[in-house]
């Protein structure tokens, strides 16, 4: 290759030759013989290579040339030790990749602002009761309430309150309302039925967010009124999946819960909703929202001041702070109640929460888990870095002879350091590139894990800022780790090294051995945390999954139907459910078919309070209204009493079947035939009473984790949507086609939604546990592999260093077995030392992990002992090879080497 320095190199040769010639001539003039003169000239000139090297450093482009040499040489070194290189690159790729993915996820869920202009101006308006939540409000409400940061907070208001609040601060903030929950609706466009989540929003919602539509337009204020032409805005996702990405859909009609709407606009792709993982795909004006129109006892909820169902978002005017807005809203708020509190000091307070990052449901749910995962992945990255440091250190030691050679040939210390740094950087570049692929795959996997219950994954797009930040941090760390061995290598006395020839290593080597040992101790300590986490979370998952739900979970199929929003009115629904049950039961392969209002094993559901006689009220009871075929799905017969009949359904009978544990709590079998009061009705009214007609074995009704008391009542005749559960005699895949054909014969236009098996349904509720278990298993295995490699490296190096010593021992009569035990013990001592350091770390972290566990302590003897067993067994594997190799040494060989 022709580079400027090639010519310079040749010129320098000629120049030095010329100088030497002149010197020779000079000495010849002084009377020396030619040979003598040549020798004296050379002696006077000194180290030719050193002069050349120093000249090179003075030349233009010296650094480019140097860098090119460093890179080529570094690559050659890497190729020469493929195992070491591969180990380092893989450690780095996995460590950085996993960290990037977790940090990206944390960014999306915890830190990122909503994709709207000036998100910092947004606040959510909420209220806080002075004590308990006021019952008369809470009973007729829809929204979320509960403790946030240790205080009771509710996010729902009556529509009247919203209008008054909006009016009162119109100059300082714009207030917009939305339903704090989303509701599933049946949608049909161009004859294709589907299901989507709908959110009602006030007419100014999108203009308050200052969004721009991808297509069409957003709502006007006048559209948000009863009787106005019904319009809808759809999300980009819905436009793609249900409307075929067709721009011509604007202005066409779409059927939502059997009402016609005109599609006004499509949202931009980047607007994912009010929070990452927001399931809403369809936005309708509050007054046109299916939930508001579908009737609540014939009353339109927005007109009813006792029905609180809108949440409020505010955009502060520039220069206005939330604290300035709060008093004005707080004054107006109590005056908007239908029944004003007599004592205003006890009135609920208005509270303004920062809204830049959107609704906080994911943040609240995943902050702790993500922090735990973040901590674990940081440990993993630290282990990976320690490993690389150890590898580089070992390599630097192995290369001491080479380094000594280079120094004596005129290589300056700074140049040597640069060479080492280039090699580290090369490693960082290769590992870093590979880590992006790892991060990408992991992030996608995480997005799937965090999928919303309604099945929409959170898009964990890799943010380039994060990739760069994590990458730069790791590269920095790596350079630091690379610098240490480089500094060590560069400051070694070179002459001594050449003389000793690297055969018997003395002081310098002993120092390195200590450093390596300390690094391995640290690694082991950190591995304890990761391996124990893996064990604990896996046991947690297995414990929950293998718990007995109280019924056989095999051969059960679930799917939802929504006849009430697909054209069935109240009078036809009862007959429909009866026909469905009859025809499904008659389908080949079906043992039993039942219908329930609430999908079982779906975590949420219908919760209520009951009171029996004069006993204390029991809150938090799981309720469901079910068909006569439902309970026999789980157990063939009741413990006592009778099951529902279709006559109970037809006659709206006030009867109930209760779970065995509730019966025991209430007083045993004697409760049969007595009345159970449902105390959740409207205040002031006498609670409805249900006659207890049966006692059923207790089952896990809502999830594998909680076993609430359960009460079943007969299916209501006007159940608009329900879940059908079928027990089959064959595996679900085989029985499903026949079930589908029965449903098609029953009503061709009624879609079967969310068809799953019970096993799938259960595992869906355990996503979070599975995420933890899978990730921690992955982290634990990686940590183990990295530490085993680290320990092996140190032990292998150490025994090779002590070859001559071991040779002497063997020559003096030590048995190979003694050597084996000696090396084994030495390695295990290191491992145990690391474990002893690691255990206090585990104890410190335990309290963060405890929240994520179910019926389990983080530090159970079983978990700790299995983790220690795994660690020590792996350590043994790492140590046994060097130990065997050492014991198989032949004294004659090792002594001859000396």
């Amino acid at each position, binding site marked *: 290759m022709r580079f400027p320095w090639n010519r310079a190199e040749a010129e320098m040769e000629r120049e030095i030759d010329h100088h030497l010639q002149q010197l020779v001539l000079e000495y010849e003039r002084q009377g020396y013989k030619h040979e003598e003169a040549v020798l004296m000239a050379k002696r006077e000139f000194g180290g030719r290579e050193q*002069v050349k090297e120093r000249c090179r450093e003075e*030349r233009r482009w010296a650094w480019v040339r140097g860098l090119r040499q460093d890179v080529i040489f570094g690559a050659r070194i890497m190729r020469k030790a493929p195992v070491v290189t591969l180990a380092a690159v893989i450690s780095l790729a996995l460590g950085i990749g996993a960290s990037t993915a977790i940090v990206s996820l944390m960014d999306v869920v915890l830190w990122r602002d909503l994709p709207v202009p000036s998100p910092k101006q947004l606040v959510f308006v909420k209220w806080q009761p002075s004590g308990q939540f006021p019952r008369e409000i809470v009973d007729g409400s829809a929204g979320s309430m509960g403790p946030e940061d240790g205080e009771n907070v509710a996010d729902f208001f009556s529509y009247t309150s919203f209008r008054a609040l909006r009016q009162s601060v119109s100059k300082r903030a714009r207030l917009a309302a939305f339903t704090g929950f989303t509701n599933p609706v049946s949608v049909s466009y161009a004859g294709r039925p589907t299901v989507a989540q709908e959110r009602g929003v006030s007419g100014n919602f999108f203009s308050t967010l200052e969004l721009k539509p991808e297509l069409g337009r957003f709502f006007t204020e006048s559209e948000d009124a009863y009787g106005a032409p019904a319009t809808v805005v759809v999300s980009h996702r819905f436009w793609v999946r249900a409307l075929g990405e067709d721009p011509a859909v604007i202005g066409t009609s779409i059927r939502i819960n059997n009402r016609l709407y005109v599609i006004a606009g499509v949202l931009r792709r980047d607007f994912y909703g009010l929070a990452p993982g927001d399931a809403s795909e369809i936005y309708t004006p509050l007054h046109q929202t299916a939930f508001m129109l579908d009737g609540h006892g014939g009353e339109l909820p927005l007109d009813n001041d006792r029905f609180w169902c809108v949440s409020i978002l505010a955009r502060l005017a520039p220069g206005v702070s939330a604290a300035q807005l709060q008093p004005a809203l707080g004054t107006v708020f109590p005056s908007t109640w239908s029944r004003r509190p007599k004592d205003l000091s006890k009135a609920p307070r208005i509270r303004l929460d920062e809204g830049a990052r959107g609704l906080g449901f994911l943040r609240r749910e995943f902050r702790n888990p993500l922090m735990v995962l973040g901590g674990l992945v940081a440990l993993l990255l630290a282990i990976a870095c320690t490993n690389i440091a150890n590898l580089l250190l070992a390599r630097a030691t192995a290369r001491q002879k080479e380094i000594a050679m280079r120094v004596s040939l005129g290589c300056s210390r700074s140049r040597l350091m640069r060479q080492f740094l280039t090699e580290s950087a090369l490693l960082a570049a290769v590992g870093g590139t590979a880590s992006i692929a790892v991060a990408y795959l992991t992030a996608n996997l995480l997005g799937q894990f965090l999928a919303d219950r309604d099945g929409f994954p959170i898009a964990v797009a890799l943010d380039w800022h994060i990739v760069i930040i994590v990458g730069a941090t790791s590269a920095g760390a790596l350079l630091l780790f690379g610098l240490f061995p480089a500094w060590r290598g560069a400051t070694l006395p070179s002459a001594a090294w050449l003389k000793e020839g690297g055969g018997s290593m003395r002081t310098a080597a002993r120092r390195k051995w200590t450093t390596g040992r300390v690094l391995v101790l640290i690694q082991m300590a950190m591995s304890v945390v990761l391996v124990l986490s893996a064990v604990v979370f896996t046991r947690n998952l297995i414990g929950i999954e293998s718990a007995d739900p109280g019924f056989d979970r095999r051969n059960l199929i679930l799917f939802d139907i929504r006849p009430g929003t697909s054209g069935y009115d109240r009078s036809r629904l009862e007959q429909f459910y009866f026909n469905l049950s009859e025809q499904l039961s008659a389908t080949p392969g079906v043992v039993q078919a039942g219908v329930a209002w609430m999908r079982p094993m779906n975590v949420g559901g219908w919760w209520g309070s009951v009171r029996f006689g004069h006993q204390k009220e029991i809150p938090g009871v799981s309720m469901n209204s079910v068909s006569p075929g439902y309970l026999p799905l789980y157990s063939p017969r009741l413990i006592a009493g009778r099951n529902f009949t279709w006559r109970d359904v037809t006659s709206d009978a006030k009867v109930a079947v209760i779970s065995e544990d509730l019966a025991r709590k209430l007083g045993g079998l004697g409760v049969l035939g007595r009345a159970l009061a449902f105390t959740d009705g409207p205040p002031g009214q006498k609670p409805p009473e249900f006659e207890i007609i049966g006692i059923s074995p207790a089952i896990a009704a809502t999830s594998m984790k909680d076993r609430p008391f359960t009460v079943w009542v007969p299916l209501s005749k006007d159940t608009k949507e329900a879940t059908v559960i079928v027990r089959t005699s064959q595996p679900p895949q085989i029985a499903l086609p026949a079930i589908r054909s029965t449903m098609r014969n029953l009503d061709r236009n009624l879609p079967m939604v969310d068809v799953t098996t019970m096993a799938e349904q259960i595992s869906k509720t355990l996503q979070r546990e599975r995420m933890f278990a899978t990730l921690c298993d992955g982290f634990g295995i990686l940590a183990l592999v990295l530490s085993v490699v680290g320990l092996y490296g140190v032990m292998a190096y150490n025994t090779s260093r002590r070859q001559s010593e071991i040779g002497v021992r063997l020559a003096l009569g030590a048995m190979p077995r003694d050597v084996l035990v000696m090396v084994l013990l030495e390695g295990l001592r290191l491992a145990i030392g690391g474990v002893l350091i690691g255990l206090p770390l585990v104890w410190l972290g335990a309290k963060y992990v405890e929240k994520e566990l179910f019926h389990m302590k983080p530090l159970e003897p079983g978990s700790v002992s299995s983790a220690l067993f795994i660690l020590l067994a792996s350590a043994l594997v790492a140590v046994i090879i060097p130990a065997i190799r050492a014991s198989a040494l032949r004294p004659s060989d090792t002594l001859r080497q000396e």
Partner: protein
Amino acid sequence: MPGKTDLLQGTLDLLILKVVAQGPLHGYGIAQKILLTSKEMLQVQQGSLYPALHRLQRKGLLKSEWKESGNGPMAKLYSLTAAGRKQLQEELAQWQRYTGAIALVLES
């Protein structure tokens, strides 16, 4: 050799510039000339001379060309550039100020 003094840090460049200012010279010639002019007091180490020549060339103070020197073989002859001439003037002035100041203190 007795009586020889090590060069003061940074003075080598000045000496080279001064010597080369009197006409193009090759590396050996520069070393010889410094040695002779200083009455054999200043001996330039080859280990420092050539790096210094390369450095001055990189800074654009010296230029070089291959020419036949007086007694036969081709040699690399260094000469001053315009920038080198200017630099020499400045460094000489600075050197005189410096030695003058030292002398003032020592002779006071």
